[in-house]
């Protein structure tokens, strides 16, 4: 998956931009994410329904995946069934 690719959730409103990815399946709400939304929405899996937050960066334990939430939704993010977690907050917006 190329960095900069924009992926949409099949189960909720979430959209992410790929910062870093490997060969695994990126999911939201328990369903695979894709560049286009399917005609019929996928059901929201109970284990992946904690929601996504706008502007947050989500990573896996090995640092192979990083997704930036550009539109929030009810589903939560995962790769091959493993949940992603929020990366630490950025420093305050700075000025130079």
């Amino acid at each position, binding site marked *: 998956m*190329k*960095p*900069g*690719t924009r992926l949409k959730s099949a189960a909720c409103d979430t959209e992410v*931009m*790929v*910062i*870093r990815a490997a060969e695994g399946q990126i999911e939201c709400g328990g369903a695979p994410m894709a560049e286009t939304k399917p005609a019929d929405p996928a059901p929201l899996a109970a284990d992946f329904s904690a929601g996504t*937050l*706008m*502007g947050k960066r989500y990573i896996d334990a090995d640092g192979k995946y*990083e997704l*930036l939430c*550009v539109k929030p939704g009810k589903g939560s993010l995962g790769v091959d069934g493993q949940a992603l977690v929020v990366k630490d*907050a*950025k*420093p*305050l*917006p*700075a*000025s*130079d």
Partner: protein
Amino acid sequence: MSLQADLSVAAPAIPLARWADRQLRAMHATYGLPRIDGSALMGERGDHGGYVINGTTSAGIGGSRLMRTKDGGWFALTLIREIDRELLPALFGDAAVNCDDWTAIAAAVLQHDCADLVRVGRVLGLPVAGIDEIPASPAIQFMQRGPNRYGPNKDGPIRQKPLVIDLSAIWAGPLAGHLLWQAGMEVIKVESLTRPDLIRRDDPATFERINQGKASVLIDFADEGQKAALVSLIRGADIVIESSRPRALRQLGIDADALVETTPGLVWLSITGHGASGEPANWVGIGNDCGVAAGLTRAMADAGGGIGYVGDAIADPLTGIVAAREGLAAYQRGTAIRIGLSMSGITALALHEEQKHDRAMIDSELRAWGLASGCRFPPVSRREIQGTLQPIGADTERYLGAFERC
């Protein structure tokens, strides 16, 4: 990659310093602000810091660069947070780009059209701009309103010394707070325990100049009690200054619109890169790239000065001055209001007004600035320090203690 500096030659005046000075003169006449020199506010960081005009690299730490794009445009990118570099592969759609090397970054920029880089960069939350942009928001937006301080019977409480809560960081917001302090207000600088204002550490001289005389409160936003105490402090204040993106503020548990709607007379100054409402409220903007987004680099090129940065983070001091002016005006009116201030919008407004005021003069100043690459910043009058610089958190107990014990 720095130019050979000719330190014997001082640069010409910073363009738009005269515009800044006219605002300050009017603030002196209308609100009793001491007479402060516009060119001092615009140029004191560059003068004291020994800055050199450096063309397409921003003056000072050089965190912002203007780079040529595939379609012949110029793209400004500011990289002063390490964590932003990790986003560059997504900006360029290329996992292999070397994010630590400006030469590699410039080569990647050359593969893309300017408008695409600006669009994707903004989605990613990077401080970016193109030289042919039109600012997305007006300079000043009047937003949520609330009750008047004086009430229907004009019997509301009036303070001897209006109270300002300054939640902002770096330059524009703190400068606004500094000017309100100069106008006789009591200013409390509030910093987050986990994310304090880094200028205290990185540029102590500038920090002291624009934060002298302010009380210092340090707050742990993970602590519900301290957060509630801060909200109580805000409810008793006259002016709030903040420079966070709206969702960051909400995630901290501070709802600006709700506080303005319910707090008589509260003036809330939201300082942003590109506007406080709609999609642009999510964009990040920093002094140098906001100057580019305002059309200042394009104006300099059109005036014969070539492509480069104008001034030192020029949108910051201009915005600080305008924010203070709007804060003083709104405080005098007495009606609670949230005012959105856009750094790119304000810089574009200043340029436009200066062009109307004296087109030939601003053009010749821009040209002279552009041709002075390699010269040190112009000397400006030195302002004496008049107030005490409080150690971080020195006044936390004094201001939050009473609320916390409730």
